[in-house]
């Protein structure tokens, strides 16, 4: 009844619309073409997605014990000459001193009478001293000495390090001892005789060394290196021929820090070490392909646990980025390694406040288990451009305490 009432009400309107349609002239061919186009292209494809209550994949966990982990520490020559910092000081971890080489004295300074030289100042810009376990700010004192000698090879910031350099080969002339202050610009008067010594052609000159003074507290101070805009420089003032005061700045051309680590780092079993100042790299071979033989198994998670050796570890209160790089056969077998920040596969930030270093490396493990690459292990290293006095130590797989040995937990996923 209701529908018939509605129909009667709207019928005149329907009739009116339909009568108009009847007089619309239709081109059948064109209409048919439009129809086909609409039929073919007018449909956006949408397929049903059924949410299942059954899992589409299964997970399983695999434990990799220390028996399946081979490890060693590789020591190389540190290459920290391009670092932004020079470190000077001594603590329980190391003794560090820095070498600086400046441009030679040019005319007229090379022949200018000494009485016309008004001043000679070494300008150093300092950073914040490196924190260690001592909460008290130490009183750091440093000594500046010039390095002379005969027949000693030149040093270079690109190749000189603690393994091929010794201050004992040089004749040192101490010019000034000063007190280090944090985040400061230190202007140090080197006295006129320093210039005279520099101009003495009877012996070879090898720049200056800034070393910890004998009476200094333990601690490490930081000086910005020549790689930064706060580079060390010598400013010399003298009187010109017309009586005017002229100032000349000599910039440093080479600088490098020599770090001598104090602790015995090569014991048995060999602790796992990571340090750029020592150039120590940890090599690990995770023999996961022996435990996970299905190469199609997806590695959903892989946590590698390395337990921190707190006796060896000194991070100076900073966190460090540990890089992981795949090794090739020559590197693993030959024990040689050249880290490059352009070739690492993953990285992890680490702070020594943690008692354990957890490296999450599912992608790396997948590479090994899938057979996509041959497993020659990985190298763990920190960048030489970082805080190089730091030493990170971990217990090896042959440690006497099984609880401290490296281990790995893997989560696998099987689809279907």
């Amino acid at each position, binding site marked *: 009844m209701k529908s018939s009432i509605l129909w009667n009400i709207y019928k005149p309107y329907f009739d009116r619309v339909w009568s108009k*349609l009847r007089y619309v002239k239709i081109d059948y061919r064109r*209409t048919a073409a439009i129809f086909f186009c609409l039929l073919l292209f007018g449909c956006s494809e*949408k*397929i*049903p997605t059924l949410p*299942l209550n*059954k899992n589409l994949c299964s997970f399983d966990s695999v434990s990799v014990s220390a028996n399946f982990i081979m490890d060693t520490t590789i020591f190389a020559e540190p290459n920290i000459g391009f670092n932004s910092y020079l470190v000077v000081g001594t603590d329980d971890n190391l003794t560090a001193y820095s070498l600086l080489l400046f441009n030679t004295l040019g005319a007229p300074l090379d022949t200018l009478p000494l009485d016309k030289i008004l001043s000679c100042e070494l300008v150093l810009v300092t950073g914040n001293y490196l924190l260690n376990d001592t909460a008290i700010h130490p009183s750091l004192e440093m000594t500046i000495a010039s390095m002379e000698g005969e027949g000693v090879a030149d040093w270079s910031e690109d190749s000189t390090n603690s393994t091929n350099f010794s201050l004992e080969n040089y004749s040192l002339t101490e010019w000034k001892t000063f007190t280090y202050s944090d985040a400061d610009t230190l202007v140090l008067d080197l006295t006129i005789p320093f210039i005279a010594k520099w101009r003495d052609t009877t012996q070879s000159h090898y720049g200056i060394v800034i070393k910890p003074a004998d009476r200094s507290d333990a601690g490490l101070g930081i000086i910005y290196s020549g790689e930064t805009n706060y580079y060390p420089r010598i400013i010399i003032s003298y009187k010109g021929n017309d009586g005017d005061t002229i100032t000349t700045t000599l910039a440093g051309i080479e600088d490098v820090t020599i770090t001598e680590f104090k602790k015995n780092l090569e014991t048995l079993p060999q602790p796992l070490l990571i340090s750029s100042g020592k150039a120590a790299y940890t090599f690990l071979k995770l023999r996961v392909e022996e435990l996970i033989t299905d190469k199609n198994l997806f590695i*959903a998670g892989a946590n590698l646990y390395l337990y921190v050796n707190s006796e060896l570890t000194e991070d100076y209160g900073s966190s460090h980025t540990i890089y992981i790089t795949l090794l090739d056969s020559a590197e693993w077998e030959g024990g040689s390694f050249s880290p490059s920040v352009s070739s690492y596969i993953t990285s992890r930030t680490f702070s020594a406040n943690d008692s354990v270093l957890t490296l999450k490396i599912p992608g790396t493990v997948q590479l090994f288990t899938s057979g996509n690459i041959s497993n020659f292990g990985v190298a763990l290293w920190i960048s030489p451009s970082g805080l190089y006095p730091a030493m990170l130590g971990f217990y090896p797989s042959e440690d006497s305490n099984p609880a401290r040995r490296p281990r790995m937990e893997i989560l696998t996923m099987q689809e279907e």
Partner: protein
Amino acid sequence: MKTSRRAILFLLVLSLNGWAQISYYANYGFGVESPANSVRILGMGRAGVAVRDSMSLNQSNPALWQGFGSTSLQGQMYASTLSIPELDFKGKMVNFSGFAFKLPVGRRVGLAIGLAPLTRMKSSVSFADSLIFQGDKFEYNSTVELSGGISELYLGTGYRVSPNLAVGLKAQLLFGNYVVRNHTEIDSDNDLESYYKRTIAVDGNRITIGLLLSDHSQRYNLAATIEKGNKFKSSTFIENNYGPDTTIKSDPINFPTIIKVGINLPVTKNLALNADMQYGIYEADLFQKFYIFQQFKSDSRNSFAVGVGLEKSPGQAFKNTFLQKLYYRGGAYYQTEPVYLNSGIREYGITAGISLPFFYNLNRMDFALTYGLKNGFLSDEIGNEKILNIHFCITTGEPWFRKYKKH
């Protein structure tokens, strides 16, 4: 003429809601059976194994492949929508559904070749959950997409033994691929994505034998076909995140045997009644051995289908109007599918169709509209599926290779 405008307007409106053969049940077995029949048959409740067609090829029975009036090429496509009110889902898709070429060889023999889809699978499933690993929460979301199907390339011939008897033979080369793509996203400290692709290639062959019995004037027809699979096998290729797996698994499959019987009865001069019955014989553990995705293993049962249709052909008047030139047909069908999981899958529906011959009755356009309701073991989760299909076929022919009597 006015009515024809209305018909075209109706079709235009209809085309705005185009669809394809999709279903949540497509994940199971070989997928959803694709309507490989000619569009004329589809409009008659899918009944037509005994229906002669001299203009367009009736693919369902090779015994009908004789007495062709023309050499012709035909192509078919269909579009359909799946709507599920309970899920508020509406999906659309368009598919090509094959082509056929036929030619007469004398008065008693005909040849036909064609390509047609048999089954189609296109759907996806998803699953999301989380787990705790070493104190970290791993949330993961898996999506599996399934697509593919089996198609056939057929070549056959029909031979009219006598005015009352015709036989036919169709050889079918079956081939196809199913592709499973499993993609899992893991949201943790290291966001990871897993990729898994499995391709199942199937191939084999099948033979169909057809029989047609007619009265002397060839108005009453009784027909039967039997399709028997032979040497059907599937091969699996796996491709993971890190390159292809060399493992290739090959399994033989017992492809089902399909028996059809049908009848074509004239009711009046221009009106005919058609009825078909189909019975599919499936191995009980077929879909336990052959499945596209492990979650969609199922049992199998013999399938059954029945269809009834009426067709009104145009009169022979010299000057027919546009609408008088059309064939009109309608029907209804009921069918069960071989997939069985606690219960089976049933579909029933109604059909309608028209055909428009043009250019001296050597060419024809066929349209069919089917509306079906499907329910089965997923009904508790998704409700009933409403499937609306529109089929289109165009046949273009020439009077080649046909011998005419000299008087």
